[in-house]
C-alpha cells in the first residue's frame, strides 16, 4: 500500500480544500509534517483514519461525532460539507477512497448527528465498488484493528500494553485482526468447512449402519449422538447469538458511558461530597450538642477564673483571723491558770506551794498577757462570715469547660470551613453536570454491569456445551470404529469416508496451531531484531511474544522486564509493527503522530534510522521541539526526505497545510 494524495475539505481545523502529495520516490520515501501543538497534527492522522474507516478518535480513543469534525468556521458560514479523499496503490491496483458528509436536505442547521448524511465511494482501477465491497477491500488491504500500528499515535502508547494482558477483551479483537492480516483464517475456514463434511459423512455412515443387522443398534446410538449434537450445536448457536447481542450491547453501553465518563466521574464526586457533607453535618451536630452541654456549667468556669484570686485573698484573711483567735484563746487560758495559781498559793501545773519570787514572776507574766490581749477581743463574727463566704465561693468551680469549649469551637470552625469548601465544590460539579441525565447514566452503568455478569455466565455455559460436544464427538468416533469393524461393504465405504474426513480435520487443526506458532515465531524474531537495533540497552536479549502477539522485553538473564518505560513501550510497539509488516508480507505506509516525544536523543536517532527500513513510506507528524534536525542528519534521513509540509495557524479554529519550499 502506498499513499499518493490526500485531499481534505473542511475537516477539523482544515477549512476549505487542502491537498498533500505523498513522496513516491523509493529513495526519498520520508515525509515530514511539522506544526505546533493544537494546530492539527493529530487531526491530519484522523483525516486518514476517518477516510479509510469512518472514525476519527479523540485522545481517549473514543469516536468523535461527524458534527464535531466539521470545521467550526465553515459551519458558522453554513458550509456543512466535509470530505477526505485518499488515492493510493496496492500492488498493481490503483484505488481512490472518498468519504463525504453533508447535511440532510431538510436540516437547515445540523444539530444532531442524524441531521448529517455520510457517503463513501471507492474506485478500484477506475471501477466504482459497492458499499459492501468497500469495507472488505479496505480491511483486506489494511484491517482497521491493526491500522493503529500503522497510523501510529505516539500519545496512545498505553493500549499496546493490552496485548500483553492475555485476558483483555480488546486484545482478543486485535489478535483476531492480526491473525487475519497474517493469513491464519484461511486454515480456520478450511477446518470449519471440513467439520460440515465430517457431519455429513457420519450421518451417511449411520444410515448405512442402520441397514445392517449387526450394526443396527450402534447406528441407533450414533443417531442419538448426532441428534444430541444437533441440539447442543443449536443451543450453542443460540448462546453465541445472545453473546454477540450482549457484546454489541456492551460495546454500545461502554461507548455511550465513555462519552459521559467525565460526567460519571463528576456524579461520583457529587455522591461522595454529599456523603461527606452528611458525615460532617452529623459531626457538627454532635459538637453543637457537646457545646450546649458545656454551656450549662460554663458560667461557673468563667467565674472561677476571675474569682480565684479573690477567694485566695479571703482565705488568707480568714486564716489570719483564725490564727489571731487561736492565739487570743491560748493567752486567755494562760491568764486564767496563772490567776488561779496566785489565788490558791500553789502552782496550777505542778501543785507546789508558790514562793515569793515565783508569785512576782506570775504577776509580771499576767500583766504581760493582759497587755497582749489588749482591750478588744478578736472578731469572731467576721471569721464566721469569711468562712461562710469561702465555703460559698468554693462552689464556683469549673470542670475544664473553657478548654473543652475552645477545643470544640475549633473543631466546629474547622468543620464549617470544610462544609463551605464542599458546598463550593458541589455547586461547581452540579453546574458541570447540569443538562446531563445523570440517573440515565446510572441506569446504563447498572445495565452494563448486569450484562457483563450475564455474558460471563453465558460464556461458562458455552464452555460446558463445548465440553459436551467434545465428549459427543469422542463417542461418535468410538461407535464409528465399531460400525466399521462390524459392517458390510456399503457401511465400510461410508466408514472409510468418515475416517478420511476425521484425519483431514485433525491435519487442519494441527495446521492452524502450527501456522499460528510459525507466524508468532516470525513476528517474535523480526520484532526482536528490530528492537535490538532500536534500543540503546544492548544487554537485553530481545522480545518474547505471547498468544495475543503482545511483546515483552527479555533482560540479560532472559527474564521478562516487568515495568517498561514509555520510551521502551514506544520501541516495543514499533518493533511489533515491523514484525507484522514483515510477517504479513505487506508493506503499509507508517504515519506517526508525535512518534519521538518520549525518546531520548540516542533512541530518536536509532528509531529514525530504523524506520527507513520499515515501510515504503514513512510520514512523521512532529512539533519543532520533537524534531531534532541534527538527529535527522545523523540518522541519514535528511537526504531521504521526499516532502515536507508545515501546518500553519490561521486562527484558533483554522489551520492550513503549506508545502515547504513551495
Amino acid at each position, binding site marked *: 500500500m502506498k499513499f499518493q494524495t490526500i485531499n481534505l475539505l473542511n475537516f477539523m481545523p482544515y477549512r476549505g480544500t487542502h491537498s498533500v502529495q505523498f513522496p513516491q520516490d523509493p529513495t526519498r520515501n520520508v515525509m515530514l509534517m511539522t506544526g505546533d501543538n493544537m494546530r492539527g497534527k493529530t487531526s491530519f492522522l484522523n483525516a486518514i483514519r476517518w477516510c479509510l474507516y469512518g472514525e476519527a478518535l479523540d485522545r481517549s480513543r473514543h469516536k468523535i461525532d461527524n458534527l464535531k469534525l466539521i470545521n467550526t468556521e465553515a459551519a458558522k458560514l453554513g458550509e456543512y460539507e466535509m470530505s477526505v479523499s485518499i488515492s493510493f496503490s496496492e500492488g498493481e491496483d490503483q484505488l481512490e477512497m472518498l468519504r463525504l458528509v453533508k447535511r440532510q436536505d431538510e436540516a437547515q442547521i445540523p444539530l444532531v448527528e442524524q441531521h448529517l448524511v455520510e457517503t463513501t465511494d471507492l474506485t478500484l482501477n477506475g471501477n466504482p465498488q459497492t458499499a459492501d465491497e468497500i469495507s472488505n477491500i479496505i480491511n483486506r488491504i489494511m484491517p482497521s484493528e491493526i491500522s493503529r500500528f500503522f497510523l501510529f499515535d505516539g500519545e496512545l502508547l498505553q493500549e499496546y500494553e493490552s496485548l500483553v494482558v492475555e485476558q483483555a477483551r480488546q486484545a482478543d479483537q486485535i489478535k483476531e485482526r492480526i491473525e487475519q492480516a497474517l493469513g491464519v483464517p484461511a486454515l480456520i475456514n478450511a477446518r470449519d468447512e471440513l467439520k460440515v463434511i465430517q457431519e455429513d459423512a457420519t450421518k451417511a455412515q449411520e444410515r448405512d449402519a442402520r441397514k445392517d443387522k449387526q450394526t443396527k443398534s450402534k447406528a441407533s446410538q450414533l443417531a442419538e449422538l448426532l441428534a444430541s449434537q444437533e441440539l447442543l450445536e443449536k443451543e450453542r448457536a443460540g448462546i453465541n447469538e445472545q453473546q454477540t447481542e450482549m457484546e454489541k450491547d456492551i460495546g454500545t453501553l461502554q461507548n455511550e458511558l465513555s462519552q459521559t465518563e467525565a460526567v460519571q466521574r463528576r456524579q461520583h464526586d457529587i455522591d461522595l461530597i454529599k456523603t461527606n457533607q452528611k458525615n460532617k453535618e452529623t459531626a457538627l451536630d454532635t459538637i453543637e450538642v457537646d457545646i450546649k452541654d458545656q454551656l450549662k456549667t460554663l458560667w461557673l468556669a468563667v467565674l472561677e477564673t476571675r474569682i480565684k484570686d479573690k477567694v485566695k485573698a479571703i482565705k488568707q484573711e480568714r486564716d489570719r483571723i483564725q490564727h489571731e483567735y487561736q492565739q487570743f484563746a491560748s493567752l486567755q487560758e494562760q491568764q486564767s491558770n496563772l490567776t488561779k495559781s496566785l489565788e490558791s498559793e500553789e502552782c496550777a501545773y505542778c501543785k507546789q506551794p508558790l514562793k515569793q519570787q515565783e508569785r512576782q514572776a506570775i504577776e509580771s507574766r499576767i500583766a504581760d498577757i493582759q497587755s497582749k490581749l489588749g482591750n478588744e477581743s478578736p472578731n469572731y463574727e467576721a471569721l464566721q462570715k469569711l468562712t461562710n463566704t469561702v465555703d460559698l465561693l468554693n462552689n464556683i468551680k469549673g470542670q475544664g469547660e473553657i478548654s473543652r469549649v475552645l477545643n470544640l*469551637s475549633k473543631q466546629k470552625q474547622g468543620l464549617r470551613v470544610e462544609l463551605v469548601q464542599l458546598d463550593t465544590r458541589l455547586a461547581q460539579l452540579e453546574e458541570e453536570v447540569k443538562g446531563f441525565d445523570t440517573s440515565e447514566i446510572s441506569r446504563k452503568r447498572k445495565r452494563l454491569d448486569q450484562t457483563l455478569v450475564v455474558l460471563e455466565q453465558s460464556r461458562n455455559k458455552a464452555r460446558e456445551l463445548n465440553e459436551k460436544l467434545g465428549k459427543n464427538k469422542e463417542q461418535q468416533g468410538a461407535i464409528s470404529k465399531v460400525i466399521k469393524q462390524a459392517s458390510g461393504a456399503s457401511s465400510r465405504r461410508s466408514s472409510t469416508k468418515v475416517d478420511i474426513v476425521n484425519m483431514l480435520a485433525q491435519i487442519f487443526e494441527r495446521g492452524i496451531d502450527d501456522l499460528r506458532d510459525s507466524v508468532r515465531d516470525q513476528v517474535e524474531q523480526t520484532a526482536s531484531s528490530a528492537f535490538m537495533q532500536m534500543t540503546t540497552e544492548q544487554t537485553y536479549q530481545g522480545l518474547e511474544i505471547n498468544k495475543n502477539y503482545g511483546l515483552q522485553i527479555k533482560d540479560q538473564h532472559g527474564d521478562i522486564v516487568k515495568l517498561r518505560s514509555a520510551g521502551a513501550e514506544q520501541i516495543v510497539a514499533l518493533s511489533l509493527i515491523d514484525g507484522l509488516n514483515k510477517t504479513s508480507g505487506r508493506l503499509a505506509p507508517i504515519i506517526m503522530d508525535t512518534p519521538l516525544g518520549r525518546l531520548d536523543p540516542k533512541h530518536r536517532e536509532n528509531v529514525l534510522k530504523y524506520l527507513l527500513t520499515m515501510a515504503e513510506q514513512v510520514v512523521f507528524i512532529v512539533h519543532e521541539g520533537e524534531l531534532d534536525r541534527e538527529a535527522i542528519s545523523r540518522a541519514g534521513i535528511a537526504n531521504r526526505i521526499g516532502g515536507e509540509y508545515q501546518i500553519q495557524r490561521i486562527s484558533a479554529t483554522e489551520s492550513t497545510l503549506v508545502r515547504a519550499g513551495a
Partner: protein
Amino acid sequence: MPEPTRIGLTEPTRDCLLEMIKEGIADNNWDLYKLAVALEISEGNSPPPLPEKANGMFRTYELDPDSVLCAAVENMNLVKDNEATYSVVERLGEVGVKKLYEEYKSTGSISLDKLLVNID
C-alpha cells in the same frame, strides 16, 4: 436592702435572648443568661441602670439556688451600698445578653473562642 425574688430582662433584651435560644445557641434561657452574667462579672465593670423595667422572668432561688452568682457579684465588689445584689445581677445580665446578641447578629453565631480566649 431587701433582695428581689424575681429578676429578668427588659422586653427588647428578652426578645434577643429568646431569639438566640430559638436559633439553638443554648438549650435554655438560664444557661445563656448565667453565662452572660458570668462574662460581665469577669469584665469587672459596674453595670449601668436598666433603661426600662425588667420583666422578672427568673425566680432568684431557681436561677441561683446556691447563691453562687450572688456571692460572686458581692465579692467582686460590684455591689454598692444600698443596692440589692440581685438587682446588680439583673443589670449585669441585661448588659451581658445584649453583648452576646450583638455578637450573634454580626457573625451569625456566638464565637465562644473569641469570648473565652482572654479568660482561659
